């Protein structure tokens, strides 16, 4: 039975359970719902959930676990001699799965009866041609061992599926029956449903956490694969980033980290003063009319897609900087320092503009949260407005402002599009902000686009880069939290 129908039956059962449970609860008090411990609907919900939730849980777990179990059993059937020199057990297993799926399709489309499929013999029949005739294409000829394994795979799958249907139906029926039999006027259905709500909330929270853990783990394992193929000292301490496909790539993260941090620092140098001053003006000086007009305008900046900022960097800011710092005697400064439009400065400035609304709207909220009593106290002592802001308001808001800046830094480090278009693609160490450089994120993109071979270090390095990036931003966030906490202790 397809899983879809199974789920539908479970849902129907739970809807029926709702009405039956409700009815039974009402019947136990002769229709007078005042004598029930809980409202009648709670009894219905209890029966419905008891039938549905455990069964669905088992269904999900079964669906996730079955492939692993079958893979383990079937791959044991494949003798080592079948595995070619250049291949691995995993690749043969994917052949097995493909053949098994092909046979399933053949049966489903009516090309062969199940009995005919079971009788197939790779020694006498050309399985690949047979399947090909029926529209199922296979990559290579099917060896007898693979066919046997595929047959075993099919039979295990179908047994598993039958067992699953049976177990799930049984659990649903048992849950339903148990809850139905407990339904009585003294049964505290309301409290049970309360537990159910709690469970739902915990489930949602743990799903979010587990996803994060899953992402980190998947990167982690690919990173381990990478370090199996490439020397870790070169990755962390080498000086050159030069991937090639001859097998002697130099893949060092250091030039990329340098580029990333350099661009981020320039971006923060642009964004923090401008954003902070804008926030101070808007929250302390601007009257309501200006504020209601300027704040949304500033926040529009935050809504611009980063690719548009990238275009702005490439077409406007870059050429403008070249006119200042390049073109020799034709340039504004008459110097020849900048060759092309892509540079660290271009990307940094544009990224800084992107971060302005980020810094300003966070700082604005934080400054507004400083109690008016602080300002009154300072003004009452004869301080001017700017003295009050500089010496009382900003120090009181500092933990929050530091947090905002570090959040902005995390965004700058993870930003991709602006850097791709504005910073160039050359990985190098240089202190000259007018030269092209590149960042971790852009290298991840370029290593994973185009033809990729997931067994080569040139591709897998992307995961190591990603994991390092994650660790850096995680470290920044932890630092932000630590700073905020330290100042908070001092001020509260």
């Amino acid at each position: 039975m397809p899983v879809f129908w199974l789920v539908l039956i479970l849902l129907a059962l739970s809807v029926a359970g709702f009405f039956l449970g409700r009815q039974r609860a009402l019947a136990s008090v002769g229709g007078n719902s005042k004598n029930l411990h809980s409202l009648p609907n709670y009894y219905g919900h209890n029966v419905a959930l008891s039938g549905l939730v455990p069964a669905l849980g088992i269904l999900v777990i079964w669906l996730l676990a079955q492939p692993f179990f079958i893979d383990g059993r079937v791959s044991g059937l494949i003798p080592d001699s079948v595995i070619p020199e250049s291949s691995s057990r995993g690749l043969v297993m994917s052949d097995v799965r493909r053949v098994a799926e092909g046979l399933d399709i053949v049966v489903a489309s009516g090309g062969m009866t199940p009995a005919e499929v079971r009788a197939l013999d790779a020694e006498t029949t050309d399985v690949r041609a047979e399947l090909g005739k029926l529209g199922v294409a296979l990559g290579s000829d099917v060896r007898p061992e693979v066919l046997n394994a595929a047959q075993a795979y099919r039979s295990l799958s179908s047994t598993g599926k039958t067992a699953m249907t049976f177990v799930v139906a049984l659990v649903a029926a048992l849950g339903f029956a148990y809850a139905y039999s407990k339904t009585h006027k003294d049964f505290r259905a309301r409290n049970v449903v309360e537990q159910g709500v709690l469970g739902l909330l915990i489930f949602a929270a743990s799903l979010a956490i587990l996803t994060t853990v899953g992402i980190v783990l998947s990167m982690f394992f690919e990173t381990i694969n990478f370090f199996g193929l490439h020397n870790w000292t070169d990755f962390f301490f080498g000086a050159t980033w030069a991937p090639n496909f001859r097998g002697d790539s130099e893949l060092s993260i250091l030039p990329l980290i340098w580029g990333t941090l350099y661009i981020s620092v320039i971006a923060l140098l642009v964004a923090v003063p401008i954003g902070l001053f804008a926030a101070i003006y808007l929250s302390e000086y601007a009257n309501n009319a200006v504020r209601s007009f300027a704040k949304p305008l500033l926040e529009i900046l935050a809504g611009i897609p980063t690719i548009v900022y990238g275009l702005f960097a490439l077409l406007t800011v870059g050429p403008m900087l070249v006119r200042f710092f390049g073109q020799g005697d034709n340039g504004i400064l008459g110097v020849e320092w900048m060759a092309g439009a892509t540079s660290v400065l271009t990307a940094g400035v544009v990224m800084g503009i992107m971060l302005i609304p980020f810094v300003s709207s966070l700082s604005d909220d934080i400054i507004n949260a400083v109690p008016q009593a602080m300002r009154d106290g300072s003004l009452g002592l004869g301080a001017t407005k700017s003295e009050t802001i500089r010496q009382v308001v900003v120090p009181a808001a500092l933990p929050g402002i530091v947090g905002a800046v570090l959040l902005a830094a995390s965004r700058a480090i993870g930003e991709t599009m602006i850097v791709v278009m504005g910073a160039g693609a050359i990985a190098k160490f240089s202190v000259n902000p007018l030269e092209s450089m590149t960042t971790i994120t852009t290298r991840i993109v370029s290593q994973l686009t185009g033809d990729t071979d997931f067994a080569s270090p040139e591709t897998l390095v992307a995961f190591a880069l990603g994991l390092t990036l994650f660790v850096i931003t995680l470290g920044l966030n932890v630092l932000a939290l630590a700073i905020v906490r330290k100042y908070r202790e001092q001020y509260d």
Partner: protein
Amino acid sequence: MNDMTVMDKTMEKQKTKIAANGVNVHYGESHAIKDVNVEIEDKTVTAFIGPSGCGKSTFLRCLNRMNDTIDICKVTGDILLDGEDIYDKRVDPVQLRAKVGMVFQKPNPFPKSIYDNVAYGPRIHGLAKNKAELDEIVEKSLRRGAIWDEVKDRLDKPGTGLSGGQQQRLCIARAVATEPEVLLMDEPCSALDPIATAQVEELIDELRSRYSVVIVTHSMQQAARVSQKTAFFHLGNLVEFGATGQIFTNPEDPRTESYITGRIG
């Protein structure tokens, strides 16, 4: 310091420090203060009493132009400090506030050390030429705020870590540090427990020897205990103004009597 001494308070006439003539305050549409005339004497504690919303705090904030920070607030009439109109265009409100210090309802120490809290005013007004002078001002102010002995060993600790009563005395010390001539206190004890209140009241009595003190209070007992002159506000009007002993024992206006005996308010 108890209610029984109300009648015995010294009543020699001091010179007028602040004179308000025909003061009106509008908050947007609402008329918060209606034609108030009052004379506040030097080296005297003047109490403003009245039910909530009667305008006593608003009037207090007119005396150092703190209402300037509220956009919709409009003040008309004359308020003279030592004979000079404080609402004159030539008067810098920032300078005025250094002369007319203010203590607020809720203790509001800055999130800085105790030392920096007190040194804040002297620093922005350049009252100390060097560190030693500043140290001296801080110590003197904390002594006048009657809190020196409690904090002298922890001047570098945050002012926000003190208890409520200590915080309020720190705020008084902070206000005193700029050498004001008048101290305005907006319900300075309403957030304090009885013991802290008693300490602050005692301090107010000491401050009288040096400053003209104006205190807004909800507690009539407090007004009776600490003040020499009392003004009763009702619905934006100054109903009665006179010696504290007279207001509390023999009020002229029936509204004053009703408020004091607890029939309105």
